[in-house]
């Protein structure tokens, strides 16, 4: 499903050039659960951003379902990302002004789905994440574990092909972390392809396969 070849990403500022990803190549099959590991600054998040179409690589090829996605314009990237890729962040990244329901609804709004359809999908996913009783609550009224469940709900509500998770348990205690990992495993079993960046050996154990990065290279 994913084919990455000779992918590089260089960050340039006026003074320094940082090689965040150095000529990496790998493939991911549909339905796989991958953990990306490595020390801080090794390029894990950069890789995730490129895979998530938040950023363009400096060179190399990135194909998702045989479509070349490297070096697309912003507008094109948004088009491909919409509904196809779900994100889960360490810090949840919920919008404070919106309640749980509205946060989860957001990707569907941008897909221009009708309100009735949205309602059904959002309620289903909230039900699934065991959080429907909190639909009217605002993020700051929830615990960290609940917030992350909302974030996961938001990432899967549009049934994306690919879920990208950036240290999803990093801000959670071990109990909540375990819940989140179980949830991801369950989603994976139902067919979602997941790529997860993590520091934790424990979390990585849930994955089928581990890609280890060091100084921008796969080791």
């Amino acid at each position: 499903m994913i084919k990455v070849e000779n992918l590089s990403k260089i960050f340039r500022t006026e003074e320094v050039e940082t090689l965040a990803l150095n000529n990496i190549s790998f493939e991911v099959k549909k339905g796989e659960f991958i953990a990306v590991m490595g020390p801080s600054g090794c390029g894990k998040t950069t890789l995730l951003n490129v895979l998530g179409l938040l950023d363009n690589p400096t060179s190399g090829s990135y194909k998702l379902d045989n479509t070349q996605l490297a070096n697309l314009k912003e507008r094109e990237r948004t088009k491909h990302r919409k509904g196809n890729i779900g994100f889960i962040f360490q810090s949840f990244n919920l919008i404070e002004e919106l309640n749980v329901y509205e946060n989860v609804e957001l990707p569907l709004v941008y897909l221009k789905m009708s309100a009735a359809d949205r309602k059904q999908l959002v309620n289903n996913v909230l039900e699934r994440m065991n959080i429907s009783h909190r639909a009217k609550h605002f993020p700051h009224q929830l615990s960290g574990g609940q917030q992350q469940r909302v974030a996961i709900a938001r990432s899967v509500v549009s049934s994306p092909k690919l879920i990208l998770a950036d240290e999803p348990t990093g801000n959670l205690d071990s109990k909540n972390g375990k819940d989140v990992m179980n949830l991801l495993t369950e989603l994976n079993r139902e067919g979602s392809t997941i790529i997860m960046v993590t520091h934790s050996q424990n979390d990585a154990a849930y994955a089928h396969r581990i890609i280890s990065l060091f100084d921008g290279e796969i080791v």
Partner: protein
Amino acid sequence: MNTFFRSIKSVKLSYILNLAGLAAAFATLLVIMIQVRYDYGFDKFYTDSDKIFRIEFKSENDPSSPYLSRISRPLGEALIGSTPGIAAGGIVNEEGISEIWIQGEEKTTSLSQKISKISEDIVKIFEFKILSGDTSAFRNPNSAIISQSDAKILFTDRDPIGQVLEIKSYKYPVTVVAVYKDFPDNSNFSGELFVNIGDEYLTNQSEWSFTYFVKLYDSGEREKVTNEMKEYFKTTLYPQESDSISEDFMRLSNIHDIYFSKDVRYDTAKKGNINITHTLLSIAILIIIIAVINFINFAMAMVPLKIRGLNTRKILGSGIFRLRANLILESVIISLIGYGFALLIVQYFSGTTYSSLISADTALAANRANLSICAVIAILTGVMAGVYPAIYSTSFSPAVAIKGSFGLTPKGRRIRTILIAFQYIISVVLIIFALFINVQSRFMKRYDMGYNKENILNTRVTNTIARQKSAFVAKLKENPAIKDVTFADGPLLSNSKMGWGRMYKGVHVKYDCYPVDPNFISFFNITILEGRDFIEEDNLKSNGTIIFNEAAMNAYPFVVGEGMGGHTDEPADIVGVVKNFNFQPLQYAINPIALYIFGTNTWRLQTFMFVKISGEYVKEAFNHIEKSMREFDPTIKDVNITFMDESIGKLYAKEDNLAKLILISSIISVFISIIGVLGLIFFETQFRQKEIGIRKVAGAEVFEIIKMFNISYIKLTFICFAAGSPIAHIILLKWLNSFEYKAPIPVWIYVASLTIVLTITVAAISLQSFRAATANPVKSLKSE
């Protein structure tokens, strides 16, 4: 202070925006202040301003008729001595502009100046400051007092006293007996040459052409003195008529009030418009409010940036009072910097043609007092804008403040939105108002005056030309571009025609008298309702011929075919009635008027010429008229031929200028409000960067982000429009009350104001939010 400048550096753009708003507001304030203080101070600089009054009469038996600024000399002189409450009284007779030169030196130096004939006491009443010479010599009819500035032009270094001046429009020379210091700009006097009036018209009962001023001993005695004067008029001067005289046939108007009054006929005094002055003052206040709001918004938006530093200092032991004082001081300094830029703007403005929009001198050097007042306002603005944010930002418990990031709290945002809404409402009202002033002004210029004014040129001709009238007209008509020519006593549309008062069938009748040529009515296509038009033979009669307008017929029991008192001992013939036409600017209603043919016993030549031309050969027509005038009178210096439309337009210059000034002010107010919105958006996009990132990750496109920012402000604009337009409507209706002829209020001005505000808002917000919307979300999501 160091941190102050550092903070300026870090948020440069918003400081620039804020300063631009302040500078625009203060510049507008200063310019308006100059005009408003000019108006309010008009003729108020005399020590005894409040004791000086003009005598005004109205038709004794018609209480609804307007007051007249002029009375006859015998009446004026009698009234001055009528009561002990009057300290002094005198006459001023403005005679228009004429050329003046030193006897025997016509070729070397001459100047054009207004001539006013006055009596001796006017010098005392109006507190003339005599710089040289002696006013005790100002007794003879041929003595004159000259202004310092004119004396300098004419005599340079020579002593003006005793010099003899020739005045072109006079038959005799005058001798300079004194030099007076020029009056301030906002005085009804404008540097004229004052000539002693002597005994002219002293016994003429029927010439009501003179302005009389009195100075009272006590300004509080105005009513008492007025009553005594009325009593004297009724019992001593006209005892036989006292029964039919209405109560308020006479009044005393203070010289300052004269400037603002507009209901007085034949009034040629300089005029201000109290509506305009009040409007301008209100606008100045509104603009300052808008600027203060912006400033508060700006300062509030800065709070999150400052709060950590402030509270760290609080923890380190800085007193809260000192922190607050510092914040307020910063705010005052910013305000004063804005004021500094405003001075540069005004300095620039005073050098442009826009400065002619206001009557006062806008040069900075001429406005020290205004500068100081505005400086104080600038400081107050700084304090006002500084206090609330200073208190707010130091009111948190330091422990909370230092830890949390104070983004846009819902409460803070709401306050700011309300402030912005207030600015928007003001902007909407001002734009509607400005647009409507233009509508009204165009309406007046295009109004059907009751006569044809298309393709008509008008100009004054000399007596030499007027004497050879028929030959001159024949000469003009040689050119096919000239269709028709007629003459009259002065401009058709004016405020100062002859005022005639006559006894008719036991009624005291008053009307304007406008001497014309026999072809005048047909020339202007004025409709005849009754009787006949003038005929050439009327010019050969020894008595006068009258055609009244409808208004005269409605007001008085005139009968066509009968005679009435004219300009000779013989009665004049009333031969017809014309449909009403506007012979005064449209601020005034149509009053009774008599079109008059003098016949063979003419008082004076008619020197105001109207020429109807073909619309195709305008330039030829102008050239031909000028050439012919010079041919018939080689001594002519300046020829000033204008389109009648154009001359009419000039009558509305003050309204036009006001419209422009209000339009400019409203543009500035919209500009300042938009700066406020921009500032808000600037901070909002900064604080919502993360949200934008999240939304983009969730699939939002750039357009959708821009739309999101726009929507709340578009809603706000509509709400403010809904609130502002009724307010504007009420103001328009009130403002229209000052016009006799009111333009209908069109819907499009409301639509236009909404469109203007909406377009500017959307453009500004889209521009500002585009940057935030196109930023890579990775960055904003990374920062924790």
